């Protein structure tokens, strides 16, 4: 639980896991662990949240809660499922996301979450190292499956989290999908004979290409943010940042000719 000045005590949070045989989860009066996990009836949730908030807040929270607050809670279910992780955010209205993690002997670890639109996504980290990702639309009973290798899974994770990094030998491209697909490349080059002895100022790299030299590596020593008067030597490794076109310019205009 993130520390905050006040916590809701009287919410009814309701999650439904469609496809795992796990029935509805209710959390009412979080402090008092009132829950029902129907099957089997005796299992229960341990609420790892605040115990009891002052009565004053207990009265006020139902009114305050819809305003703006983010709450992370964690509940551990005993009985039917060994671990149950519930994350929910309340921002304007109750948004509920149940993430269930479960260790299946011989198979691996399962993570399952139900989206706001009641679709189910389940991810299995298999013992073989591969990952199986299932998606189950809310209006269907047939899931779709994809099996991923760890690099593929990492790539999907990066896409979903909004930053795509593509690395080849000397360059890295970072795309920020949240910023209207902004793509920035970072590239390394080696300084050749004809640039040796010239300073950053003389070469006018930024003015002529738009790219920026952000670091120079010389004989095992790194110079971060070299000053305009910095003079290159043959064999210096430079790190330049910019858009792909700008870096191409740098390569053709400055470094080669």
């Amino acid at each position, binding site marked *: 639980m993130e520390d905050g000045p006040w916590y809701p005590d009287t919410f009814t949070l309701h999650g439904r896991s469609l*496809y*795992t045989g796990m029935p509805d989860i209710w959390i009412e009066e979080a402090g008092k662990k009132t829950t029902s996990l129907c099957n089997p009836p005796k299992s229960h949730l341990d609420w790892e949240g605040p115990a009891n908030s002052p009565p004053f807040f207990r009265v006020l929270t139902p009114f305050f809660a819809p305003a703006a607050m983010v709450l992370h809670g964690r509940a551990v279910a005993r009985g039917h499922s*060994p671990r149950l992780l519930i994350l929910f955010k309340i921002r304007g209205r109750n948004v509920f996301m149940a993430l269930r993690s479960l*260790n299946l002997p*011989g198979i691996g670890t*399962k993570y399952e979450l139900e989206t706001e639109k009641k679709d189910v996504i389940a991810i299995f980290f*298999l013992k073989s190292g591969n990952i199986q990702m*299932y998606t189950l639309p809310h209006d269907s009973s047939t899931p779709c499956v994809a099996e991923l290798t760890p690099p593929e899974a990492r790539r999907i994770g990066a896409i979903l989290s909004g930053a795509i990094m593509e690395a080849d030998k000397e360059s890295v491209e970072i795309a920020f999908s949240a910023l209207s697909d902004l793509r920035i490349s970072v590239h390394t080059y080696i300084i050749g004979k004809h640039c040796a002895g010239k300073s950053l100022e003389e070469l006018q790299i930024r003015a002529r290409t738009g790219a920026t030299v952000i670091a120079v590596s010389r004989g095992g020593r790194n110079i971060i943010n070299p000053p305009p008067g910095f003079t290159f030597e043959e064999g210096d490794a430079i790190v330049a940042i910019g858009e792909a076109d700008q870096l191409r310019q740098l390569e053709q205009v400055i470094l080669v000719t």
Partner: protein
Amino acid sequence: MEGVVLALFVCLVLALITKKLALPSIPFYIIAGLLIGKSGLGLVGVDGVAQFLTHLGLLFLLFFLGLEIKPDRIWSNHRAIAQSGLLDLHINVIIGFVAAYALGFSFADALVVAAAFFISSTAMAVTSLVENRKLLMREAETIVWLMVFEDIVVILVLAFFGSSGEHPLIVLAKTVSLLLALILITHTGRDYITSILKRDDELPVLLTFSAVLGIAALASAWGIPESFMVIAFGTILGTIDPVSFEVHSRPFKDVFLVVFFVFFGITTDIFAEGVSVVAIAGVSIVAVFSKYLSGIAIGHFVHGNRNSGIEIWANTIGRGEFSIAIAALWGSGAVSSTIATMVIVTSITGAFVAKYSNAIRNVLARPREENRGSPPPG
């Protein structure tokens, strides 16, 4: 020695083929054993080397089983495990025993057959769920816990029936004291053991290998059930670092277990005198059918839906490693050939049923819907 090499190469070829076709490999190792052994061409016999390697295969199978057993996790799921597990146990042991007894096995032999009959192959069930991409099915969890329950039954069977002629209480006292000593040693030396396992030289593998063999030797020297001790030792070591022990013992298990399966086939003589073909075929067919009944029962009582039972059935038909282990430990000639055939029939049937379970489900579910739709008689 040459026999072992020949058997291994046959298995290597079979492994390549079965993995390509996504079929379970255990039945094919046994078939290969039958073909090159006593029942078939008689190319390979059993010598001291083969016996030793076979024994290692069994020990590492059991050690692996022990590593997978997590007492706390099982306890926190005991309700879910017990309900489906007990249904499975009762239905299959009773049907297995009655079938074997009716088909002419002696009382003791029928018990061994019933035990092997009951235990589905955990490895096959898990592979089938992963390969056929059925992990999201709500029955998948039930199947996984069902396998855990069956594993526990294996352990109990090994503990009770594996003892020597001594008084059971003496054996029990010895077993408990050895277990306590092991727990004490492993937990006081926990940090030291962990530090050895982290090394990247030969030490971790050497430790794992000699620990398993050492425990087995100690147990048999003391007259306590060796198989049970190896499993329990695996469980105890599993509380320290299950992943490392698994990684270091896996190569031994993989190789020696193949030797174990193929030599089980080699030593089994299905054409021997006194082995009734009717009994062998009968047990195999009943074995497929009886898991159908238990699957439907579990589907009905646990999921409230008989169709769930068809999925549970599809993934639990295959009998495998533990059935063979039981046959190798206590089976007479007739029992071994019956169990060998049962493993071959059920595991191949299981592989196909699991692959086409959706279609089978539709076929088996349709008649009931039609019945529901038809007007009541009279």
